[in-house]
């Protein structure tokens, strides 16, 4: 089976019951993507597939052959951080760091959803083509990513700063 992960091709065989999350973590040692529940409830396993955010724990790996999968390792490295990664450090948008890769991947996908005009439950005008990501929109749209350390304020500050910079 062939997978495209962070721009690199991987040829690998495995038990077809394997989730995309376990493929990444156990077979490819791409352990930046985290497991917090394995049930789609915490968002720690968020990765991007063709630019859209998904919970890798709910994805059967075999169904993602040939799709463009991006994980936290594909966004940046400690020496060359992605703007969001750097903003998380600056705003202390984490403590233990375990939910963090999922939060960051989720924020990337979330910003793209807003650019496409996808409404959320707090969007006032469902017909709007442009969504302004105000404080409530950001918090609602990031609510699928749990953080038990309580770094919520720093996470939202970091995401806001990067989105504002991109918009400018």
């Amino acid at each position: 089976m062939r997978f495209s992960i962070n721009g690199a091709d991987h040829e690998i065989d495995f038990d077809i019951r394997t989730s995309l999350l376990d493929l990444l973590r156990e077979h490819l040692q791409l352990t930046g993507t985290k497991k917090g529940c394995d049930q789609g409830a915490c968002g720690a396993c968020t990765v991007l597939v063709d630019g859209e955010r998904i919970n890798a724990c709910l994805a059967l790996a075999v169904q993602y052959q040939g799709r463009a999968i991006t994980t936290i390792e594909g966004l940046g490295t400690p020496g060359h951080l992605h703007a969001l990664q750097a903003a998380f450090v600056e705003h202390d948008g984490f403590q233990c760091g375990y939910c963090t890769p999922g939060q960051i991947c989720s924020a990337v996908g979330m910003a793209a959803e807003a650019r496409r005009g996808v409404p959320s439950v707090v969007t006032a005008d469902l017909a709007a083509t442009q969504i302004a990501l105000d404080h409530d929109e950001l918090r609602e749209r990031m609510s699928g990513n749990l953080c038990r350390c309580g770094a919520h304020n720093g996470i939202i500050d970091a995401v806001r700063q990067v989105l504002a910079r991109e918009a400018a």
Partner: protein
Amino acid sequence: MSALAQTSWRPDGASDPLATRHGLIGAPVSRIDGPLKVAGQARFAAEVSMPGLLHAGFVYSSVARGRIKAIDTAAAEALPGVALVMTHRNAPRMKPPALFGTTPEAAGASDLPIMQDAEIHWNGQTVAVVLAETREQAEEAAALVAVEYESLPAVTAFAAAKAHAHPPESVLGEPAVLEIGDAEAALAAAAVKVDLTFTTPRQNHNAIELHAATIAWEGDRLTIHDASQLVTMTAATIAQVFDLDPKQVRVLSPYVGGGFGGKCLWDHQILGAAAARLAGRPVRVVLSREGVFRLVGGRTQTEQRVALAATADGKLDALIHTGVAAMTAHNACPEQFTFPARHLYAARTFKLVQQVAEMDMLANTFMRAPGESIGTFALECAIDELAEKLGADPVAFRRGIEPEKDPTSSHEFSTRHLNEAYAAGAERFGWAKRSATPRARRDGEWLIGMGCATGTYPYYRMPGGAARITLTADGRARVAAAAHEMGMGTATVQSQVAAERLGLPLDRVSFALGDTELPPSPVAGGSNQTAAIGAAVIAAHTELVKALLKLAGNASPLAGLSTDEVEGRDAGLGKRGDAARFESYASILRRAGRDEVTVQAEAPMPLELQKWSMHSTAAQFCEVRVSESTGEVRVARFLGSFDCGRILNAKTARSQFRGGIVMGLGLALTEETLFDERSGRIVNATMAEYHVPVHLDVPEIEVIWTDIPDPRTPMGARGIGEIGITGVGAAVANAVYNATGKRIRDLPITLDKLL
């Protein structure tokens, strides 16, 4: 730069000079390990790869009390990839772990034997462990293990257990019963009083990282990559369980994905090690989220009574705080909910009684501010109710009952600035705008209210910590202690402190942790780690200076000076108050022909705790909006004003305070582990049904602090990991009352209770 720290824990000791220094102390330094964490490169326990690794699957008991009558493992064993099915029939002989608190190194969460017999003690106990080549195979095999039980009568209802409630032998070394004067008589005679019952539910830590361990034997040497907040104690207790020398067990845990009291020693590490030994191969244990609920205890449920009697001039004539916590017969975590009442307020009489009620359940354990979190809920709601009866503002009322010294021990406070914290917090929050009458503010369907409450948490410094400092000829220092990083910013803060002490730039100092090959550390619990490591580093620093003065010898400008006369500055040692007498570390080492010098020392015993009453305090302020049509509560604003001694890193400290407050919002509004009283089974063992606060639940949280150093602690600091959660439940409940006119005394404050 800094003069040497003396022994501030002795009555005659001088304060740590770092307590009043600026520079790196208090600076908002970003986390040193931040880039690794945000890039997904920080390696957690389940992420260590090893050749030949087997994956573990767990089978949990479905009865609360009884015996395994029959266990059929044949189908599981026949599956491809299965290497081992371990049950009580083939598990290696192991001693029960020594119970936490019984010896300095004991880490056992309970002292029950682990998989040594057919007995079942709680619904969820492990009855079999499967090892297989892949996780998928292990889980399928675990599902095929068929167990037949003989059930025995079990105590799974709190009401039934309470009928046999009794005071435990001690509550963390404090007496379970403490009485001063005749509080019940004072209450009976009082004109203004409250006498209230509060109930609080079970809760689980639910760190996002699942409990995990990667375990390997090499002959009789055992290595465990664990997610642990007590590596030294885990190694010692596992050695005791397997009859090994503690030196034969190495525990590594450089990063922990959240702890909050839950990442200690439980059955899964021991069972994983036992299975690895039987199979002769390394093993990875990753509990499922359900498994975490089955095997790792949480905060227990309580019923508390707070009765307060007031005098006409607004003093307390009686302070009664009593109650019962559910516990097991095999552990010792009585959830010390009466601790806040022992130190917070002046009263003429006191009656403080802790009881425990034994149930057949998974051992409960420490969860962020055990006792203080829910004890302040009851006490601070009752204070709010009493203030209202007196027609007093709750902030002003508290100012009137501020004690001059510890009200129950009579010790002097090392420092206490709760009044200042309240004043600053009230000003900043706009407390003056609160209406004393409930239901006075609304915005459409939303009723708006404000509440406040006091938070408090003790200063602890556990004994047994040591630290090592290596100074190299290129002017760098490596500091090391076994220690733990669960998100507190341990390496960052300790590097800041060490750099300031040594007089080195921050980028010349590193701090290694999370490994039992490093000098031992006590548990990262009781918010004590910063002080414990800080004291060990002070001791090591003194040794280092001694060694350097010796190496410097007579040719040095430092010749003839004693350790008391010098300080670390500008990458070297200098005479205090004398800029001319100085030699750099590099020069001292070079002249002595040394590449480096290494010292190690142990922290002295925490004698400061015997002389002073040492507590942090906080003033917590909350504004809520409550929907009149649905009863939904939204927290609109929150502010915490803290008096915790010196703050060492403004950035990471703010995060830690906020994190505690967020967990407090969960305690107040959403969190409850549902325990089926018929079966003793936890029925909401998922993150979807156990509701921790999510982004939309968390408002912008403002945090301020007094920053007044505590002269009796290393760096003038007191721990800040737990105080954030304290007082939050009451601040929210009092705000809900101010909004709606309804007093909710049963947590969590869910919407059904407000309709």
